[in-house]
């Protein structure tokens, strides 16, 4: 324990260490503040949507208390499908600023593509994103950690203290491991503390658990970089060489590999562009519009029970039939889009351990509740909700059955069902296990290099 303390003292004897810590604390605080602001905005937005929905429900209830309502009045008014604010928004903004967390669902908008969907890209696109805590932890934390620990013994090799240390009979592996831990501890402790703080600021009941798991992810990621530092010191013959190697490895793992993976997944599974989506929707709408009368007649032939007296469709029924046709025409495009995005994510999941930066980013956004899978669950539930809205209102719309007070409890309402904790926990723990395995592999590689003969050669 005293040896650990001496290593810490040696670290802090260098004034640069204090400067490094101050800058790191500043970046952590800035990241936390940005994340918290984004979280607050999402919360305000959700509250406004909920207030609006509550007010609309109140008005409908009041009217229905007195009289019945034309279903066209109710069905035409959008219902907000709300993705509740992320459980730990201060941890990672993730995709929450790219993707809508609210979708306005009405019988007239069922086939309207979700706003912002075309911007949906590989969630591990580390080049994008805000200066939030996840950005600091995935990008900058390794840099700070390497700045503190890049010179575990390379400088000692230059100055001769390595020979002095080895001559004492110290095990170089234990010595370097102890030194790596001592040098990494201040940065690791700050990163873990900031992560736990972000977890404690979450509003979800499981925010604490998510924060603790995120701290575990950060710890595993930090251990990986310390193991990298140990490998570097097994080879580098000078502190300058170690610094250069550390910088290069950071660039490869944090910049190059994620970017390459992004390019690869987009090339393997290109998603249709927004322009293509819009063009196809327009073409389908134009075509359906031309065949409007034919479509509604065909619909009433297939569903005579919904046909009005005399099979005389009004303009709105015709519009609904056109929209249904547009939906059918757009189905393959939407499926293609969703399949491409899913396939991209699956490739990222499969190859995330090519860089622990990807695995860490995935795990942190997952824990924050701003990752791909939660958004995907939201989109799927919104699609199901649209189906429910159609199934409920469409027959009433065509038959012009007035809505009464008795219908009120049956109005389709959207409530987002979170994924079971066991599902996201399994994904996160698999990520942690993978990062730890990489750290262990680096540690073993370093151990093979850290023999007195190789170090003093």
């Amino acid at each position, binding site marked *: 324990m005293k*040896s650990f303390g*001496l290593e810490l*003292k040696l670290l802090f004897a260098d004034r640069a260490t204090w400067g490094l810590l101050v800058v790191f604390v500043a970046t952590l605080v800035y990241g936390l503040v940005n994340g918290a602001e984004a979280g607050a905005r999402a919360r305000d937005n959700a509250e406004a949507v909920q207030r609006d929905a509550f007010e609309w429900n109140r008005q409908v209830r009041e009217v229905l208390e007195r009289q019945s309502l034309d279903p066209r009045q109710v069905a035409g008014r959008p219902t907000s499908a709300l993705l509740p604010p992320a459980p730990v928004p201060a941890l990672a903004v993730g995709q929450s600023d790219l993707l809508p967390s609210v979708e306005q669902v009405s019988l007239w908008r069922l086939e309207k593509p979700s706003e912002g969907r075309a911007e949906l890209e590989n969630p591990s696109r580390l080049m994008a994103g805000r200066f939030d805590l996840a950005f600091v932890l995935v990008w900058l934390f390794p840099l700070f950690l390497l700045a503190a620990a890049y010179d575990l013994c390379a400088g000692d090799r230059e*100055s*001769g203290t390595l020979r*002095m240390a*080895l*001559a*004492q009979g110290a095990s170089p592996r234990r010595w370097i491991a102890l030194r790596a831990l001592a040098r990494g501890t201040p940065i690791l402790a700050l990163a873990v503390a900031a992560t736990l703080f972000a977890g404690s600021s979450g509003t979800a009941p499981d925010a604490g658990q998510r924060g603790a798991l995120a701290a575990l992810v950060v710890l595993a990621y930090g251990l990986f970089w310390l193991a990298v530092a140990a490998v570097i010191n097994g080879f580098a013959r000078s502190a300058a060489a170690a610094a250069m190697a550390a910088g290069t490895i950071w660039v490869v793992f944090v910049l190059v590999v994620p970017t390459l993976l992004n390019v690869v997944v987009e090339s393997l599974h290109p998603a249709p562009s927004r322009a293509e989506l819009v063009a196809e929707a327009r073409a389908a709408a134009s075509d359906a519009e031309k065949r409007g009368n034919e479509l509604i007649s065909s619909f009433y032939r297939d569903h005579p029970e919904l046909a009005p007296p005399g099979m005389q469709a009004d303009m709105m029924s015709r519009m609904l039939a056109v929209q249904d046709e547009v939906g059918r025409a757009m189905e393959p495009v939407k499926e293609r889009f969703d399949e491409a995005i899913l396939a991209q994510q699956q490739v990222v999941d499969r190859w995330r351990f090519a860089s622990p930066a990807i695995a860490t980013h995935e795990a942190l956004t997952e824990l924050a509740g701003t990752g791909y899978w939660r958004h995907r669950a939201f989109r799927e539930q919104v699609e199901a909700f649209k189906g429910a809205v159609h199934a409920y209102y469409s027959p009433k719309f065509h038959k012009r059955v007035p809505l009464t007070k008795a219908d009120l409890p049956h109005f389709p309402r959207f409530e987002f069902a979170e994924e079971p904790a066991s599902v996201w926990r399994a994904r996160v723990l698999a990520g942690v296990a993978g990062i730890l395995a990489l750290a262990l592999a680096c540690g073993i590689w370093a151990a093979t290099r850290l023999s007195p003969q190789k170090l003093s050669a």
Partner: protein
Amino acid sequence: MLEALKLTKRFQDRVALDALDLRVEPGEIFALLGPNGAGKTTTINLFLGFLTPDSGEARVAGTSVAADPVAARRKLAYIPEMVSLYPRFSGVENLDYFSRLGGHQRRRDELYGLLEKAGLQREAAERRVGTYSKGMRQKVGIALALATGAKALLLDEPTSGLDPAASHEFSRMLKRLAGEGVAVLMATHDLFRAREDAARVGILVGGRLVAQYSAKDVKDRDLEEIYLERISA
């Protein structure tokens, strides 16, 4: 005791050390002389386990360096030409740090005592090593040998660059250590110190120990003359 038994080391085609047989008894100072590249530092590195011999064996107080290098190193102390210490640590902190690496934990007052015994007063011991002279660093090295209770001491050009007073003081400490039963192997170019301090002197040329003389032999003859004669033979 330090023993080299047919100790041989080659670097590619070059023989750095050729079947060295050497024995330094407890309490004895053995001076290893030789020109640059003669194999002096290689010998020390083989005793430290920093190099693996191609054949033969190095032993420290009965422990084979090849079989158990850590145990062998823990019986050794090593003082290079320039004792490398952490400049931001004080002398006493360096002593604490390096002795802990060897598994020796001592109280702070004991460490000050050892430094004082090595000739470094408390006020100096508390100063950052970055301000130390070479002689003061050598004293920390001696204190380290005392702190670890080393059975053998390896010195690589220990007096090179020391002024005569510092060299004399170092020599005094060395004799004191030897007096406590430590076997001392000193690789040096300093013929004066070798003659003054060593019980035996060996001359290494091209990796081979070409001659050994007792203190009496070298006192009767001019060591420089012997040395020059041997290395040019």
